[in-house]
């Protein structure tokens, strides 16, 4: 799969996630679900930190555009998540569902903390969920992560996650 094809593939996934997310979220009892975060994390696990930060930048900016707040509020944390998840590509040695689940849990925590940090830095109100809501959000992300990872991987050459996939 060429670089252009890969970019088109992840771009389509990011656009899809950014479009679907607001439609789904208003119907969910939880009130929050970050599909873009899951796609960024999955892509980063699959392709490494460079691809992860790229996906984070594009996905975050799309989220910013569609959500109505300043551009960059979501993009900053997503870049960080993409980078950190990308680092796991060289650390995690198994290709099971545990990798995406752990990555999703970690990505949720990092994204939340980074969002608070960025908002505080530029003087935006630091609205955030209570610990219970964050826990539920993390659990939801963890539950969905294997499926999202499988779908993102499906059209990009079928690579497994982690170093074992590169053998």
């Amino acid at each position, binding site marked *: 799969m060429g670089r252009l094809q890969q970019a088109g593939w992840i771009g389509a996934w990011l656009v899809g996630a950014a479009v679907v997310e607001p*439609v789904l979220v208003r119907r969910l009892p939880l009130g929050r679900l970050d599909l873009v975060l899951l796609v960024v994390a999955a892509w980063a696990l699959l392709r490494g930190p*460079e691809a992860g930060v790229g996906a984070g930048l594009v996905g975050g900016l799309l989220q910013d*555009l569609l959500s109505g707040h*300043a551009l960059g509020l979501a993009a900053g944390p997503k*870049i*960080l998540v993409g980078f950190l998840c990308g680092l796991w590509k060289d650390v995690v040695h198994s290709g099971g569902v545990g990798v995406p689940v752990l990555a999703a849990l970690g990505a949720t925590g990092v994204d939340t903390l980074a969002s608070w940090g960025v908002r505080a830095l530029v003087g*935006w109100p630091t609205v955030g969920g209570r610990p219970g809501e964050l826990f539920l959000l993390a659990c939801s992300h963890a539950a969905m992560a294997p499926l999202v990872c499988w779908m993102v991987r499906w059209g990009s050459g079928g690579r497994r996650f982690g170093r074992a996939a590169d053998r």
Partner: protein
Amino acid sequence: MISVTPRRRVGLLVLLLTGVLVLLTGQLRAPDRRAVGWLGHAILAALAPLQVALDEAVETGERWVRALTEIRELRAENARLRMEVEQLRRRLADLEEARSEVARLRQLLALRAELPAATLAARVVARDPDTWFATVLINRGGRHGVRRHDVVVTAEGLVGRVLEVYPTASRVLLVSDPRSAVGVLVQRTRDAAIVEGQAGPLLRLRYLSRDAAARPGDVLVTSGLGGMFPRGLRVGTIRSLFKGGLFLEAEVVPAADLSRIEEVLLLVGSGREP
């Protein structure tokens, strides 16, 4: 493939994060603290219809799911309401029964005040299944002071007399039994006669003088002449008159609905051997 060193990776991260921070701070002075730019507008213009279409599709799906769920709920509710209606119907029937009983007992109470003798209320507990004989069993007997030949009435009129007395129940011989004979007067003309049972819904008036001026519709009351029944109790109404040998005879409709009696009054101590 170009190899990326860890330092370059971190450099890329720092560069992008710095760019984002610059982008953010650049918007702080903008109206609403958001500057999308022409490219952003173009992207939004392209994505908005997608979101609308997706929302409509999801909405349609939700409506279908809701409809299916509602059908199940409506079925359950329908079953529950049917059961409730059945319970209410039963309750209504019970109440109607109680109301009817209260009305009958009120009539009996009113009659009790009019009667000269002491009375005892009783309930019909069994009916003679034999069509040739008409007797009923009531729930009052010797222990309650009932004696053989005590007269039994309802608010409508004469029912019969006590045939047999048991300790806690009594058997009543209805006026419709062929063994029953009651001395009567035509209330309007004061002509005397005898009413006999004939094992059917109607009674037979016998021994009415051919000179009597009785006519259909006339009310018959007990004459008190035989000594068994007190005077003046309603027995029935003449339905049709006809000649029967030396006397006139008549078909009589009993005053009391003998096929439906449920509560009766016993005239305690009125019974005398004929």
